[in-house]
């Protein structure tokens, strides 16, 4: 008998006032009882609308049915047929606009908590299952994957399951890409990413860290080394700045730098080797998920005040609703319809050697109002004359987007990119303008979601398999 409660089982979480001061995970996960109770809300619809909402088409009603039976490992096996990173997706996917948006239960109440159930199943597996993996028989073909973020890992996993010998090349010292350098510990513990990477290694995927494709090796050299196809998933690494005066002041970070220092380099620990500015008053410019991550990291690093400075209103804020709510609960303040025009650096007129010289002392902002909609239908923010004011801050984090990294484009002849630097691909296959070179994820689209990058990895893995094995 289905559970007809219109509301989801609530997600147990650390209290806002506690979690705002630690880097432990915010959401704690369902118990077995809560998971079964939530699973029983699923009506097991024949037409499975949820599956069409999932970029990697997980057999959602099937895995939920297994949870109903208490067969959690069975549920995991179903998810892992479609997803190489279930513990990650259960945490960072925007389910509210994907699978859960299509759920029939969502019409008269809240949809089934598919993301929460996926997370439960993956965590259960990681805790209780033997880590043994059936290594498929090798098929004798070699494929290279550039970048170990969600897109690269997905492509590598899918190909390894078919028997390919896959090598993933990662520029940084740890595999995981944005999952380790970008998304903070309190949203996605790095231990979980490591487990997912270890699962792929157990499948036979080789991870080569400290190799920058485009520098250490080129795509052409990968082919010379016997790789039969290359999947480029190098991400959207280059931070955008605002090009306003004062961005070179000390205390101004790109969100990439700030988050990399804290996440990858562990600057949040008590005695880190890598420094980061802690405490004080922090402004984060931008309204996306990365801005929320940076703001919440700043709070946890001991900031007295953290502001999100965004030029449109709350309605246009592109971050996930859940992230915005979490940030608000924790004490992040939202300065909406506000745009920075200048970052002001301290300069002691009497002492050119004052150590405070050159550090941020404030940010000049202007109030905005919403005007006519632009070509995307979003109302364009317009500055209100004479409304400038100075925000008293000493750290500014710029989170206004990223662009694809040009290192590969610059060293790969015949690889076509669009005006924004994204690699041009055929949607249904991930094929680029270069024979045997495929691409996907943020390197193609510019900054997007983990799951869409994974979807692209899946598409490319399928196309590569068809091209090499003709299936």
């Amino acid at each position: 008998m289905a559970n007809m409660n219109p509301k989801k089982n609530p997600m147990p979480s650390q209290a806002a006032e506690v979690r705002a001061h630690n880097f432990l995970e915010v959401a704690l996960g369902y118990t077995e009882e809560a998971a079964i109770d939530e699973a029983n809300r699923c009506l097991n619809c024949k037409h499975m609308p949820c599956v069409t909402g999932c970029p990697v088409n997980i057999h959602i009603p099937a895995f939920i049915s297994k949870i109903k039976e208490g067969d959690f490992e069975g549920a995991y096996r179903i998810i892992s047929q479609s997803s190489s990173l279930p513990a990650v997706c259960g945490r960072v996917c925007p389910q509210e606009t994907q699978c859960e948006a299509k759920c029939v239960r969502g019409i008269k109440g809240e949809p089934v908590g598919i993301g929460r159930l996926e997370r439960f199943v993956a965590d259960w597996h990681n805790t209780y299952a033997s880590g043994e993996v059936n290594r498929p028989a090798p098929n004798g073909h070699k494929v290279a994957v550039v970048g170990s973020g969600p897109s690269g890992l997905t492509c590598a996993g899918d190909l390894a399951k078919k028997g390919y010998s896959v090598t993933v090349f990662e520029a940084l010292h740890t595999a995981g890409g944005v999952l380790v350098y970008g998304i903070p510990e309190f949203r996605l513990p790095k231990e979980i990413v490591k487990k997912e990477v270890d699962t792929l290694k157990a499948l036979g995927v080789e991870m080569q860290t400290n190799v920058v494709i485009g520098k250490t090796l080129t795509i052409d050299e990968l082919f010379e080394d016997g790789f039969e196809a290359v999947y480029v998933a190098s991400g959207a690494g280059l931070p955008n700045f605002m090009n306003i005066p004062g961005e070179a002041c000390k205390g101004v970070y790109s969100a990439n730098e700030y988050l990399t220092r804290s996440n990858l380099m562990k600057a949040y620990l008590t005695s880190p080797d890598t420094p980061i500015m802690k405490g004080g008053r922090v402004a984060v410019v931008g309204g996306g998920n990365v801005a929320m991550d940076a703001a919440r990291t700043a709070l946890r690093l001991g900031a007295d005040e953290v502001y999100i400075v965004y030029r449109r209103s709350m309605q246009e804020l592109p971050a996930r609703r859940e992230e915005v709510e979490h940030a608000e609960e924790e004490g992040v303040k939202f300065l909406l319809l506000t745009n920075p025009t200048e970052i002001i650096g301290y300069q002691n007129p009497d002492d050119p050697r004052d150590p405070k010289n050159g550090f941020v002392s404030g940010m000049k902002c202007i109030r905005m109002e919403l005007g006519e909609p632009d070509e995307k239908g979003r109302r364009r923010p317009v500055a209100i004359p004479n409304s400038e004011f100075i925000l008293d801050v000493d750290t500014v984090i710029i989170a206004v987007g990223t662009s694809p990294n040009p290192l590969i484009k610059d060293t790969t002849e015949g690889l076509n990119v669009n005006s924004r630097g994204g690699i041009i691909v055929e949607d249904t296959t991930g094929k680029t303008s270069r024979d045997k070179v495929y691409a996907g994820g943020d390197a193609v689209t510019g900054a997007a979601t983990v799951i869409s990058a994974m979807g692209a990895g899946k598409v490319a893995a399928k196309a590569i398999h068809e091209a090499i094995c003709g299936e």
Partner: protein
Amino acid sequence: MYQIIHKRSLNPTVTLMDIHAPLVARKAKAGQFIILRVDEEGERIPLTVAGYDREAGTVRIIFQIVGATTEKLNRKNQGEFISDFVGPLGRPTDLEGKKKVCIVGGGVGCAIALPVAQALHEMGAEVTSVIGFRSKDLLILEEEFRAVSKTLTVMTDDGSYGRKGNVCVPLNEMFSAGETFDEIITIGPLIMMKFVVEAARPTGIPCTVSMNPIMIDGTGMCGGCRLTLVQEGKRITKFACVDGPDFNGYEVDFDEAMSRSRMYFPFERKKHEDTCNLFKGDN
């Protein structure tokens, strides 16, 4: 893991290491840099390549012990390993078509000026070298420079070796005497490069500087290494890791670069002290 094949102390604060990193050695060129981590949880630091042996698969680094990470690196012995070593990063120094070049090195910067001088010498270019140090104890690589230079001038701030004064003294003398070059390449402390650029400016001789700002990834991802070039009055942001590390010295905003390089001074000093205290326990 990357093995330290060879280690040698060049002076009390400067150490040379050859690191086994065949993929980096295969590609490295003068002017490029690597990023290393000594151990797990260690900091990533950039070091400009001081040489390479493609056959042996080794890359030479020469570093000054200035902070916690270089202190830890210096405590590693020949035969031991460091966690990470990635490169070659950045663009190589552009030497094409250069026939007569003046190399100006300062302190540990001489270590990375040397491969540039050597490459020029091998190309058949005429190399005039000026190298400067605080004092005689800090002198490095004199013989190596002499071997590839038509003339070599050694300067020390305190006059304990060579001529007394900074590197601009002989430079200004050469310019006054009407000496000219296809290019001046200067590598050393920011303040020295700033003054070399100012000395060269009236001559109009192209002047290349090698920047070494604070970095994390070295691939363009963090933007921490950004610096400002002034081109026709317009201020343009560049990333040293992917656009450099070499830049047209006449365009670099050195004051800003110097300010940025001091961002973490208090942290770095404390961390270095803590690290030294940690090692004291071992001895």
